[in-house]
């Protein structure tokens, strides 16, 4: 647990190498665990990778600050939940969903919008065309859930107002890019 908390702290700082280590550490065990569910090897790998990414996102966004279980249990709880969803077999009791912490964090978003695949790809494409500074601000705000104050700190902006206007300028740019693609 002590070491696990170290890892969490490293992840919070965005240390991707720490994430690599976590990924490799439990991978074999997870594959062995998942095989009896009769899911393809590809799906197993996908689920495992997505669970590791979910871990990273939860730590970075601050949803996960203090572990209430071991790191392995946490990762496995997310992954089991994903297996469960994949199998869509609600009668399957083998999966323990006792790890409430991980389960809650798998919840879907309130107010989420339905997006077509086409729209999503267009937006991704437009996002990639933005300048580095814009992507930084938007990434910190929308992906990592940092507020304006901490973005100001992270990117060394002079004031919160500068961050705010930068952000809305970038959103406008993004909007224009998408419009161009559509037009």
């Amino acid at each position, binding site marked *: 647990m*002590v*070491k696990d908390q*170290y*890892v969490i*702290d*490293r992840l919070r700082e965005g240390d*991707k*190498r*720490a*994430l*690599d*280590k*976590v*990924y*490799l550490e439990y*991978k074999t065990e997870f594959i062995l665990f998942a095989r009896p569910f009769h899911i393809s090897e590809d799906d197993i*790998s996908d689920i495992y*990778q*997505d669970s*590791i*990414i979910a871990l*990273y996102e939860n730590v970075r*966004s*601050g*949803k996960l600050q203090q572990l209430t279980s071991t790191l392995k249990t946490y990762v496995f709880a997310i992954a089991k939940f994903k297996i469960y969803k994949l199998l869509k077999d609600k009668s399957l009791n083998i999966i323990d969903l006792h790890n409430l912490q991980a389960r809650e964090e798998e919840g879907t978003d*309130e*107010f*989420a*919008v339905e*997006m077509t695949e086409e*729209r*999503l790809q267009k*937006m*991704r494409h*437009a*996002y*990639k065309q933005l300048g580095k500074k814009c992507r930084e601000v*938007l*990434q910190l*705000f*929308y*992906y990592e*859930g*940092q*507020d*304006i104050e901490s973005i100001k700190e992270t990117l060394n902006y002079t004031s919160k107002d500068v961050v705010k206007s930068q952000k809305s300028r970038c*959103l406008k740019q*993004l*909007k224009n890019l998408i419009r161009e693609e559509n037009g």
Partner: protein
Amino acid sequence: MDKQQLMETWFTGKLSDEERQHLNDLLATDPEFREEFDFQMEVRQAIREEERQTLKSRLKSLDETVRPSGNKWWYAAAGIVILLGLGWLFFPSQPDYRELYVLNFEPYPNLISPVVRNGDSVTDIQLNQAFQWYDAGEYEKASGAFQAIHEHTGEDYAWFYRSVSELAAGNDQKAVYLLEQYNWQEPERYENISSWYLGLAYLRQERRDDAVKYFEKVSSSGGELHRQAALVLEEIR
């Protein structure tokens, strides 16, 4: 809180229940606001997707590059630390640093000489001799031989095994001196493991704070021996 502020706070996940209700009402009654909100939700979704794909390719690429390491020598050491930890359950007391040292210290395994070709250059002969002494526990002799090899070749491993030999010979002060002053050419390979031995050397000197510093380094590295380091830390903290 104005509309913009409300939206902003929503995206950072810090809305109170009351504010969330307010947001909900706004979304239902203010089409312009709704449009802007939906757009930003889409932006978030797109960025998420982008980031996830990047991370995913990173993880996938790991599968291709990683080879398993067959080097399990520290498991025994770990077992001992655990046993020791259990012991303290029954006899809670100030940790005995020297005892912890003795239980955890093990000369780093010889990972060099079986790999090196059995050539007949001067260095190869010196090297085989050095490791023969090292493996036989004649650490003073081994240290001298590694020193000579280092002078010839400047290789990190020679310096590293020289330092470990000194520690094994009981010259912890010298080992600390050697390990702390050296700049590794391959820090990835030697820095972490050196910290482990520095931690042990300080443990032997009963210099707790210095030991903690190095064990913390190892423990947080996630690399070789990080578990053992965490276990030792639990004992001495």
